[in-house]
């Protein structure tokens, strides 16, 4: 059989057409993501500071990271903050979603609990932190100090933000981030077919085995996803800490990313700040790439079914 001479080739205009659609986005990404990424790397090799003079100093900034006497504490703070917050918000997210989607499924109370737990994440951060500031206010005006004063009228108000600053930061973060995981987990639980529970009941399964044999296995993927994406968030963002304690007292609640921010914007050590950021970038990048491995890209990218 004779086949025709030339296979079909897309004209150039049609090849370029899709790029027109992604152009604005691509430009933004180039200028405000890729460029900053490159600039961060370059800056981390300079001693750029308030004087705005750029001198290349090689690996000095990175050497300084290893000799910075605050570093051990800051790294420890970062790990402590990220791990404890993660563990507790996972636990609460899991508990609430199982309670509302399994034990109280379809009940009004389930809806109320879920909405209540959503509130801290909806309330703007700046308003949210005022409650925690009030709760642990170091003067007698603070709620906890007021209550303590009721029991022990002679005692002095306790300066909570000096004593347990890290705990306050962690609690405030947990209460606000739990709902994110809760929503994903609830969605996963509600997609378990009702028949499975019925079958388990018929087989005489206990509540415990329903949870461990039916519910938990179906949460494997969302749990993985929440774990990694929360970790990325806890390691890299510092908004609550900035608003609640600004890293203090001393450096008790300063995490790595906040430290980078402070070095750059408070002390104007831009070069050193960039080097510290780069460390956060590296950790985030590793976590992000791990997260990406969870996705099936071939499944997600489908070719067009119209040929231009």
């Amino acid at each position, binding site marked *: *059989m*004779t*086949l*025709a*001479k*030339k*296979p*079909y080739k897309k004209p150039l205009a049609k090849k370029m057409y899709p790029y027109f659609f992604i152009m604005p986005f691509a430009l933004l990404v180039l200028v405000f993501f890729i460029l900053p990424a490159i600039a961060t790397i370059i800056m981390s090799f300079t001693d750029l500071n308030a004087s705005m003079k750029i001198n290349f100093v090689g690996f000095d900034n990175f050497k300084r990271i290893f000799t910075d006497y605050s570093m051990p504490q800051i790294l420890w703070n970062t790990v402590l903050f990220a791990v404890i917050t993660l563990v507790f918000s996972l636990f609460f997210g899991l508990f609430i979603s199982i309670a509302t989607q399994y034990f109280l499924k379809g009940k009004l109370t389930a809806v109320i609990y879920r909405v209540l737990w959503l509130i801290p994440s909806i309330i703007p951060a700046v308003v949210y932190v005022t409650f925690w500031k009030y709760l642990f206010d170091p003067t007698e005006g603070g709620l906890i100090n007021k209550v303590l004063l009721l029991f022990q009228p002679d005692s002095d108000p306790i300066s909570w933000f000096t004593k347990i600053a890290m705990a306050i930061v962690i609690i405030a973060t947990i209460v606000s981030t739990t709902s994110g995981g809760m929503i994903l987990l609830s969605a996963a639980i509600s997609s378990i077919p009702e028949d499975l529970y019925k079958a388990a009941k018929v087989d005489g399964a206990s509540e415990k085995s329903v949870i461990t044999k039916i519910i938990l296995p179906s949460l494997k993927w969302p749990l993985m996803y929440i774990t990694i994406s929360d970790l990325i968030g806890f390691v890299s963002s510092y908004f609550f800490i900035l608003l609640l304690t600004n890293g203090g007292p001393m450096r008790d609640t300063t995490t790595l990313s906040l430290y980078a921010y402070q070095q750059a914007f408070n002390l104007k050590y831009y070069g050193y700040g960039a080097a510290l950021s780069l460390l956060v970038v590296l950790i985030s990048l590793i976590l992000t790439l791990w997260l990406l491995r969870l996705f099936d890209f*071939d499944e997600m990218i489908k*070719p067009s*079914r*119209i*040929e231009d």
Partner: protein
Amino acid sequence: MISLVNIVKDYDGKQMGSRAVDGLNLEIAKGEFVALLGPSGCGKTTTLMMLAGLLKPTSGEIYFKDKLVNHVEPKDRNIGMVFQSYALYPHLTVRDNIAFPLRERKMAKKEAYERALATSKILQIDHLLDRKPSQLSGGQQQRVAMARALSKDPEILLLDEPMSNLDSRLKLDVRDEIRKIQRKLGVTTIIVTHDQEEALAISDRVAILNGGKIQQYAPPNELFNHPANLFVGSFLGNPPMNLIDGVVEKRADEQWVKTKLFELQIPQPCRLEEQHIGKAVKLGIRPHDLFIAEQPSEAAIRLQIDLIEHLGNGQLIKLTDRDGQADMMIRLLTDNEKQLKEREMISIGIKPNKFHLFDMTDEGRNLLQFQ
């Protein structure tokens, strides 16, 4: 009107090198109703999509009225198309759905609505014009889809499994109606279907596709009576054709087909070429071309009834040889009058000249040419 010349379509991507259509040639006359029939994955839908211009052939040429249209955009091909899912625009009313192709041609709104009304009257859906597609039944949606395809007075109408989402009774009505409207408007129509009954009933000619190639392109009767090859023979017909292994033998001046159970003489006018003598063949006999012999005769084949299925308008009898040596299962279709019992031995015969011989090549060419 339409010519497809050596059309090849490769899908790239994951299944690299998978060829959906492989050197397809097809001529369709003006006003003709043609069906593309075949099992799923045979390339029939791909062919239709290439006619619509939504897919581009890897190689080969498509002509509409002698004009090469390979690179003509779908919108410039003047075609109407009905999809399996009907693909009505959910945000538009029935009226706006039907007027959509007209409005896209920059026709004034008033005129477009008048045309939409006229088309909807042909399809008897003029009372539904203000509804949204979600408020319509499946049959009504199908009519709206037809109306939308026809409103712009297309030169070619493409139907992609248009009836597969309808229930079986409605299917018959719609089938007749599509045929009637097509005759009335004289629009060249190509339907893609996997339903052979539908294809044979509705079209002037049927192209049977398998593996991206046309197996046979002929009017329905011809396909049924003179299948070009083993695929067409076994694909068409329900219950399917009996296929029996045999060998061609030459005895004096006569040619015979010998199977494990019986022998059959090949009639003089359609003698095989010498090269087939001694070669294995497939003997194909349709279930309704077998009959139950009243008196056991020399030529009759003695078989045992294995299973009787009542089909309503007849009974399908599955027969085996008693000792199972030939390992043969034969289906026979007979009327309801016969009183038969399972395990009973009967004699069957073959209606004269009602059999086919296929060679054992991959193609399975039909060797007989009965007139």
